[in-house]
C-alpha cells in the first residue's frame, strides 16, 4: 500500500486514494484558516496605524510606536506584575493539588465512597465562571457571607476585612477558588496515569517491605512523572493568559490595582475604547511571551527528562 517516489503517476494514484480524506478535513481546514490564521495575519496591525477602511491589514506603517507606548505607560508595570503574580501563584499552589488528590483517591478501594468522591470533585468544572464568581461574591460578602463569618471566627482575617474589596485578598481568593474549580477535574488525568501503572512494581515493593508512604514515593510518583512534566509544560504556555473571564468578572474598583492583568487591559483599551493598534500590540506582546515560555520549558524538559510536546 505504500507509495514511493513522487512521480506524477503516483501522485495521481495517491489522490485517487486520498481525495475523500481531504474532503473530510475540509471543514476543519477552512475553519482554522478563517478563524485562527486570518486573525494572525491581522497581527500586523500592531505595527501600523489602524485604518477603518482597510481592516485587518491596517494603514500607515507605525513601527514599534505602539509597543513603546505600552512600555512607557504606567500600566505596563502594573499589568505585568499582576499577571505574573496571579499566574505564578496559581501554578505554585494549584499545580500540586490535583496530584495529591489523585494519589489520595488512588489509595481508596474501588467502591461507593471512591465513586461518590470522584463524582463530587469533578462537579465544579461544569459550573460556569459567572456562577462561580457570583458564589464567591455571595459567600464572601462582608456583611453576611458565610465564608467571611467562618474566617472571622477562626481569626484568619480581621474583624473588618472585606475579602472582596481588598487588594491583599484578591490573589488568594482567585487562586483558591481556582483550585476549587479545577482540582478535581485535573486529577482525572493523573488517576488515569496511575491506573496504567505496572502492577508488578507494587508487588515487588511489597515484597521489599515498603510501607504505603514508600509505595507512593517509589512507585506512584515515578509513574506520574511524565504526565506531570507534560502538564507543567502546557501550563507554562499559558502563563500570561490568566483566565480572562474570571479576572474580568472578579474585578471591582477596590481591587483593580492588583486585578488588572494584560488580557483585561487589552479588552478595555481595544474593545471598549477603540485603540485598535495599541491593544493589538499589547496582545501580541502577551502572546509572544507565552509562546517563548512554552518553547523554553519544552526545551528544558526535552534535555533534562527527554519528555516534550509534539
Amino acid at each position: 500500500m505504500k507509495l514511493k517516489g513522487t512521480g506524477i503517476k503516483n501522485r495521481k494514484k495517491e489522490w485517487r486514494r486520498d481525495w475523500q480524506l481531504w474532503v473530510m478535513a475540509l471543514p476543519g481546514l477552512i475553519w482554522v484558516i478563517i478563524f485562527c490564521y486570518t486573525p494572525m495575519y491581522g497581527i500586523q496591525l500592531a505595527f501600523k496605524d489602524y485604518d477603518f477602511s482597510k481592516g485587518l491589514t491596517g494603514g500607515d506603517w507605525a513601527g514599534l510606536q505602539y509597543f513603546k507606548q505600552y512600555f512607557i505607560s504606567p500600566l505596563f508595570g502594573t499589568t505585568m506584575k499582576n499577571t505574573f503574580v496571579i499566574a505564578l501563584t496559581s501554578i505554585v499552589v494549584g499545580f500540586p493539588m490535583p496530584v495529591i488528590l489523585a494519589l489520595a483517591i488512588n489509595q481508596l478501594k474501588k467502591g461507593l465512597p471512591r465513586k461518590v468522591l470522584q463524582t463530587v470533585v469533578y462537579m465544579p468544572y461544569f459550573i460556569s465562571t459567572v456562577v462561580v464568581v457570583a458564589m464567591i461574591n455571595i459567600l464572601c460578602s462582608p456583611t453576611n457571607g458565610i465564608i467571611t463569618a467562618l474566617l472571622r471566627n477562626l481569626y484568619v482575617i480581621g474583624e473588618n476585612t472585606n475579602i472582596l474589596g481588598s487588594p491583599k485578598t484578591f490573589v488568594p481568593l482567585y487562586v483558591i477558588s481556582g483550585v476549587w474549580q479545577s482540582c478535581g477535574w485535573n486529577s482525572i488525568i493523573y488517576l488515569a496515569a496511575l491506573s496504567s501503572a505496572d502492577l508488578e512494581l507494587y508487588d515487588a515493593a511489597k515484597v521489599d517491605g515498603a510501607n504505603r508512604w514508600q509505595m507512593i514515593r517509589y512507585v506512584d510518583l515515578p509513574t506520574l512523572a511524565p504526565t506531570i512534566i507534560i502538564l507543567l509544560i502546557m501550563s507554562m504556555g499559558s502563563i500570561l493568559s490568566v483566565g480572562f473571564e474570571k479576572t474580568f468578572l472578579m474585578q471591582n474598583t477596590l481591587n483593580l490595582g492588583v486585578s488588572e492583568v494584560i488580557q483585561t487591559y487589552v479588552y478595555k483599551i481595544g474593545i471598549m475604547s477603540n485603540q485598535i493598534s495599541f491593544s493589538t500590540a499589547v496582545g501580541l506582546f502577551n502572546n509572544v511571551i507565552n509562546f517563548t515560555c512554552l518553547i523554553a520549558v519544552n526545551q528544558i524538559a526535552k534535555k533534562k527528562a527527554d519528555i516534550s510536546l509534539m
Partner: protein
Amino acid sequence: MKKSFHLSNFLFKILLGFICIFSFVAVVYPLYFVVIASLSSATMVNQGKVILWIREFGTYGYEKILEDKRVWLGYRNTIFYSLVGTMINLAVTMPLAYTLSRKEFRMRRPLMALFVFTMYFSGGIIPSYLLMQKLHLVNSVWAMMLPCALSVYNVIIARSFVEALPPDLYEAAQLDGCSHFKYFIKVVLPLSKAIISVLFLYYVVGHWNDFFSALMYINKDELKPLQIILRDILISNQAFAKGAGIGSGMMGGSYAQDYADQIKFAVIIVSTLPILCIYPFIQKYFEKGVMIGAVKG
C-alpha cells in the same frame, strides 16, 4: 522496627482520611449551601442561621425568576447555541479526526502541526474581533457558534481514539472495496460512541458556559445567552431591572436588597442544574476520554 511501621501506616490513614473528607466537604458545602439558602427565607440567610438545613421554607427567589423574562430568553438562546453549536462541532471534529488518524495519509503530520500550532499561538482578541466585524458576524447567532466550531484539543482526543481502532477492520473493509466515506460512516462512527459522548459533553458544557463570545460579539438583548443575563443579575446586581422589578415596587426599596440574594441563589440553581444533570450519565466515559487525550504526549 515493627512499631514504627504501624505508626507510619496509622499516620498515612489519618492523612488520607483528612484529604478525602476535606476535599469532599470543601467542594460540596458551597453548592449545598446555595441549595438550602435558595429554599430558606431571606431573613434567616442574612442572619447566618441557614447552615446545615433549610430554615423557614420559601420559594420567593424561584417565583421571581419565573416572572423574569430575561432569564427565559437567555435560557432559550443558550439551549439553541448549545445544541446547534455542538452539532456543528461534532460534524467538523469527527471527519477531521478520521483524516488525521490515517497513517498512510502523507499530509497527516503537516496538517496536524497546522492545527496544534493554534493551541499555543493566536492572533489575539482584537484581530479576531475585527475579523468578525468584517464577516458581519457581530450580533448574529453565528458569532456564538462559528468561532468555537472546533477545539483542537478535542480533535486530538478523537484522533487518538480513532487511531486505536483495530487496523484489521480497515484492511478488511478495503478488500471489500469500501471507500473512506463508507468506512467512516458504517464502521468508525458506530464504534466511536464512547468518544462522541465525551466530545458531546465537552462541547455542550463549553457552549453552555460560554461567556466570552457573547461579551465580545453580542450586544442585542434578544440574542444574549444565559451567561450574560446571569452576569447582569448576579454580578452587576441588576436583579430588579425588569420583570422582577414589580416585586421590589411592592415591597419598597429597603426589602429589595435583602431579597436580591434570594433571587441570586435561585438563578444559580436554575442555570446550573441542566448541566449537572447530564453529567453523571456521561461520567463513566470521562476517564477514558481524558486518558486517550493523554496518550498523545
